[in-house]
């Protein structure tokens, strides 16, 4: 065979499954058999196409530590047929994987700068590999801030880890919920509102943003108001994907293909198209 077929999944095993939230599970899987053995064998911000055999294939971001090359970690919300089938896999079961695909969070370019990580809902999962790297290489960055918003206190993803990071003196972690219930004493409101209160130097800040599209639009507006340069803001976009290799046309967003040019984009490249409805 002259060359490999990018549409062929590799068969790997589930090493571990953990429940995060009622509908959200984390799978630790073997890396694809053609992946490099050394760490890192993916970049924070990238994703895989995961196949539940006989059901289908969907894009899922890496949510694990890029320094750990022996297991690939994915955090999946069961929303439909494929994602539900994936979250039902147990340790030892097989699934198909193609990847890694897509662009990465610009962590090297952010060295020496303040870093503002803004996550909404499950958007925290694709940002977690970036957070691991920021913390592992903490001395290379200025102030590091994580702003995380979710619907209710019961929907807080990676809660124990957030609490652990919050105890560190070199990271500012702020969590807000749309609706407070029970004994919640933290912030209430949407995550863009936290930006005005966060401590960073806008002139030398890199912002990494992932969440629902409306949340990202408001976050973008708040970051602009705060004075962060458009070219220093990065967003992760989501579109329907069937191939992840630029061949199926499904993931178009304006002049770009999300699987090829994203999913992580510098925001000035998207700014003309984000306000246009149904693009």
């Amino acid at each position, binding site marked *: 065979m002259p060359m490999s077929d990018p549409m062929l999944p590799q068969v790997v095993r589930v090493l571990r499954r953990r429940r995060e939230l009622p509908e959200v599970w984390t799978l630790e899987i073997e890396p694809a058999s053609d992946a490099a053995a050394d760490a890192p064998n993916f970049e924070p911000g990238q994703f895989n196409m995961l196949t539940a055999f006989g059901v289908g294939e969907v894009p899922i971001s890496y949510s694990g530590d890029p320094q750990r090359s022996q297991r690939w970690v994915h955090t999946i919300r069961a929303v439909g047929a494929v994602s539900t089938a994936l979250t039902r896999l147990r340790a030892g079961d097989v699934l198909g994987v193609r990847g890694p695909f897509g662009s990465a969070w610009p962590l090297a370019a952010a060295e020496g700068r303040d870093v503002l990580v803004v996550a909404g809902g499950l958007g925290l999962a694709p940002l977690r590999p970036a957070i691991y790297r920021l913390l592992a290489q903490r001395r290379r960055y200025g102030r590091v801030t994580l702003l995380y918003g979710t619907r209710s206190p019961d929907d807080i993803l990676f809660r124990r880890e957030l609490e652990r990071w919050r105890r560190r003196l070199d990271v500012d972690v702020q969590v807000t919920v749309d609706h407070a219930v029970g004994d919640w004493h933290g912030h209430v409101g949407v995550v863009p509102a936290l930006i005005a209160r966060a401590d960073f130097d806008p002139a030398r800040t890199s912002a990494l943003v992932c969440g629902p599209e409306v949340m990202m639009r408001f976050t973008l507006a708040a970051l602009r108001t705060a004075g962060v340069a458009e070219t220093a803001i990065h967003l992760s976009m989501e579109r329907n994907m069937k191939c992840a290799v630029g061949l199926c046309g499904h993931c178009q967003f304006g002049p770009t293909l999300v699987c090829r040019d994203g999913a992580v984009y510098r925001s000035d490249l998207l700014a003309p198209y984000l306000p246009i409805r149904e*693009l």
Partner: protein
Amino acid sequence: MNPPADADVSPAVLTVDGFQCLIDELQRRGYRVIGPTVADGAIVYDDLASVDALPRGVGDAQDAGRYRLTRRDDEALFGYAVGPHSWKRFLNPPRLKLWSSRREGDGVRVEPAPEPRQPLAFIGVRGCELRAIAIQDRVFLGGRYVDRPYDVRRRGAFIVAVSCGTAGGTCFCTSMGSGPRAQGDFDLALTEIVDAGEHHFVVEVGSDAGREIMAQLPSRDATSADCRQAERIVAATAASMGRSLPAEGVRELLLDNLDHPRWDQVAERCLSCANCTMVCPTCFCSSVEDSSDLASEETARERRWDSCFTTDFAYLHGGSVRATTRARYRQWMTHKLATWIDQFGSSGCVGCGRCITWCPVGIDITEEVRAIAAAPARTGGSDHADGHAQD
């Protein structure tokens, strides 16, 4: 396809009988020979056993939303314009198994789908279709990832192009620079001459493979008079074309007018039927579907043509990103004429007119561009030259 080593292979003249020898020779060499033939009242592409299967003496009448075969007053073999089929159905079949999997013990084995053994030979590829193949080459072969099914089929294909002697009723290839003359990556290119009792083809050789085959056929060298006659035919076709698109500025025009009222007007007519995408020779979008037997012992993934006009196409979070026909038509047309350039370095339109002919309500892409150009309202909010925001 490599250009012939000997750069000046002079044109030859092939008779209609010689044309049968061409088909025979291709079959002898193991090619699956495909070309135009009549089925269900249209010119379609199918396996050709002999020259008799070609639509001899058949012409067509095409206009927006209209297609009808006609009887010519000569015996031309290629006296019609393109029909609803294009070569993409052979290079990228409408349904295609990608792989299957089988449970083995507590594991699963993935088997790539078998690949076709027989190389393809296309007879009667028009200039616009050569361009369409070149455009799909960029999509499927020109990026970081190569589409294996397309590559396997495309690599060994032998292309017999034909310059157009008659413009179709909806063609605008002249303005797109893709026709009516067959130019580009072909093995042989023919111009059919049917005139005053004469009936033959002036043949241009485009590759070593083409030269090898020509050497096996009964032919004579073309005279300069033959060549001039061929040129005149193509020039007359170009001059008789009724439609056009502006050569420059369409991309900027459309991207600056993403909220133009014309999109609402076209959406009132468009049925979102996806015909235009199915007949378009460059539209390449596909979807995949997995299946399994009841016991889940065996599963398979199949790829099939998809269209940006379906609601599932842009499905995300329980709904379509493009819920309205307005958004879907805008996506189709701006992709063809504008964002294709960003994505793949060329326009996605070759001016073949198929989308105009086969639209049941007769929507005309050239007319839509003209309507926006006539009353542009810079609403897109974009500065495309350098990608910077401009609120």
